[in-house]
């Protein structure tokens, strides 16, 4: 239908709401509605204290969503981010308890833990990436399978019991510490956001990921190593999940195999609400940060309004589906050129 849209007379006419929707997606509308609804439901919601609280709580989801975004933009998705978090938590906790008997230096013990967590996540990401890129397994099956394998291994290693006895300095620093007056997790998240933004907008790797997700064959014919790009997207996603896993482990001060259980769903929801296309090729870092913030804000609002956690699951799932419906509408508008 290329002929239909060639202009005979061009008289640009823009509907600002539509333009905003096409540019950034459904997020500003959702955000506005949530703010209004929750402010009505509780006067504790719209306070500086509470919003700071939301910001602090959202750090973990922001990080995971950044990784998820990479994979979504590359044209896939990663259902195994939760598992990567759990595996990281267990692996880092186990190696820290082991290292405590070997090294005297707390620094070395913690470094060992972080390194072990990172290595495990690297393996998860590589398996996902190689499966998707080289063996052409659909991202859905690949990451779902890896998710089950990883969750099983994490439970097997711990027997389902949290691993305690981590160095106090670990929790004190990465869980509750402050650097330059800023909570450490927030500090780390801000660095990650900046790095990710630079990577996606200023480096060839970012351009490559957008290109591969937009049209993988065209990317191939534009001299891009599509397979390597895909693997990198999955590996980076896993590594960011690992970072989140370490921060969460520090927060709960133990290694737990059930950490991050809802992260896959929440991070995909955050990305889609933030206008990352499920078809790949489209998505912005700054919006994803807002999207994750929005999800946590909704959860916080529901907690304040005393909505039961079971009903929260219902609402989150519905939000995701709604967001996808709006994503479809938006994609049609983009292609049609409204």
């Amino acid at each position, binding site marked *: 239908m*290329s002929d239909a*849209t060639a*202009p005979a007379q061009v008289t640009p006419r823009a509907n600002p709401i539509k333009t905003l929707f096409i540019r950034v997606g459904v997020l500003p509308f959702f955000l506005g509605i949530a703010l209004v609804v929750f402010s009505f439901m509780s006067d504790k919601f719209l306070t500086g204290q509470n919003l700071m609280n939301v910001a602090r709580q959202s750090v973990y989801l922001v990080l995971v969503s950044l990784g998820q975004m990479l994979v979504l933009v590359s044209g896939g998705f990663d259902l195994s981010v939760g598992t990567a978090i759990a595996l990281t938590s267990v692996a880092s906790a186990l190696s820290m308890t082991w290292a405590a008997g070997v090294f005297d230096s707390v620094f070395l013990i913690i470094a060992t833990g972080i390194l072990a967590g990172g290595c495990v996540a690297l393996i998860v990401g590589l398996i996902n990436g190689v499966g998707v890129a080289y063996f052409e397994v659909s991202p859905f099956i690949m990451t779902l399978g890896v998710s089950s394998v990883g969750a099983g291994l994490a439970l097997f290693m711990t027997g389902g019991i949290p691993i305690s006895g981590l160095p106090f300095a670990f929790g004190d620093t990465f869980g509750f510490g402050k650097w330059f007056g800023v909570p450490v997790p927030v500090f780390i998240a801000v660095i990650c956001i900046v790095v990710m933004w630079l990577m996606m907008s200023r480096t060839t790797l970012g*351009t490559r990921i957008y290109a591969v997700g937009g049209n993988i064959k065209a990317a*191939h*014919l534009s001299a891009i190593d599509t397979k390597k790009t895909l693997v990198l997207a999955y590996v980076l996603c896993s590594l960011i999940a690992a970072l989140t896993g370490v921060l969460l482990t520090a927060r709960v001060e133990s290694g737990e195999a059930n950490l991050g259980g809802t992260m896959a769903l929440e991070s995909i929801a955050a990305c889609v609400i933030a206008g990352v296309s499920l078809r790949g090729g489209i998505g912005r870092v700054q919006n994803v940060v807002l999207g994750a913030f929005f999800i946590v804000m909704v959860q916080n609002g529901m907690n304040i309004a005393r909505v039961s956690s079971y009903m929260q699951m219902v609402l989150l799932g519905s939000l995701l589906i709604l967001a996808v419906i709006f994503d479809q509408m938006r994609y049609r508008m983009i292609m049609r050129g409204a």
Partner: protein
Amino acid sequence: MTLPLLTTHNLTKTYPGVRALDGVDFDLMAGEVHVLFGENGAGKSTLISMLAGANTPSEGKIYLDHHEVVFDSVARAKAHGVYTVFQEFSLIPTLTVAENMFLGQEPRMGILVDHAEMRRRAQEIFDELGFPISPTARVSTLSRAQQQMLEISKAFHGDLKVLILDEPTASLTEREVDHLFHFIERQKAKGVGIIYISHRMQEFKRIADRITVLRDGAKIGTVEMAGTDEAALVEMMTGRQIADIYPTIATTPGDVVLEVTELATPGVAPSSLSLRRGEVLGVAGLVGCGKSRFFRAMMGLGPRRSGTVHLNGHDITRLPTREIIRAGLYYLSPDRKHEGLDLAKTSDENLALNVVTSGAPVKRGWIDWRRVRDTVAGIATRVELPEDYRARRVSQLSGGNQQKVLFGKAFGQEADVYIFDEPTVGVDMGTRAALYLKIKALAEAGKAVVVISSDLPEAINLSHRILVFANGQVSAELPRTEASEDTVLKYFFTESEPVQ
């Protein structure tokens, strides 16, 4: 004077900011072939999409047999006997031919689908039309031409009054075109009105009764085919005279830049080729003769069974595609939707990709976007992409402008040899002339150019040398001086067995 079968009155379609079709009055007689002619974006597709029921008019009316009709869906139009074969096929690749033909109206025995009856009726229709397709074949195994025939065949159950064909010959071989025309003649005799969209004047001259020319969404006029010559039509279409769209390209062959020795790929026997700087090589042959496959294998896009490829003396035979491109061999895909462009992105973004991957504006992994923007602006000017279209998403551009973007991508990547595979598929005259000038500029700047084309005049008139493929083999290599259409055409058909 008989009354027309189908009429439109003041048919208009507006999109936000765009008047795609502007008050068109059109009429179709029973038993006539009425050609719609115009450049890409002239409004042909918009017009037929409304007659087909795929789109609803913003203003204006459609009359069938003097009664006003409202086609609010393709099914409604079909129920009235108006059937459209679109360029984009609506076939389900995982189903069989017969299942596709009767999709939604399967013959039944009780509640079960009567497969035997379905196959029998499909076979009947194919026999009548003379199309060599097996009703039990899976659609994914058919060639593009066969899929096209299947699309056409779908029109033949039920009461057909109006048949609309949108570029039906785009992927057909000469022989298949003859079949199609023969069949159109028979439908004419039965009183079916046929609306036929095509860019190929040589072809529709054979079957057209009347021609309606559209430009910029408006009707320029309707003329009788008899008594109208090509020049007049082109002038009506473009609003200007085009003396000769093929430029003369200076012949100054330099050093050998590409040397292919005995390269073989499934479907193509070992073939060799040597190309000099400043030379344009035309590659002709029927659809499926292996001409495209040979060059795709060279690019690493298909398996290489044997042989070597040397570029500037370096062996690039075993390299992956991206390194072949970096080494200086550029391939322009014939399929801009699936292999060429990212349709959801803007023209500029598509162009920027190749500028970035070429590595020029990248320092230690960081992209200098200002330089990218400058380069992209230069490329857009070079391919004459209108300024307004640069920030538009590619999906909204006409085929001609999409092709300009695709050409522009080639200029983002510095290369020594450019392989253009069907560079003007679905592109109007004005754009073609512009693209030919780009090819001329490349060759005269010392690049080697390969033009693979199923459009014979294009393959011949642009090049210094012609390579003809038939049945997976090089059947002739002729200098321009010896290559008339007749001589080249002779080599399209060989007695040899097709290469496996």
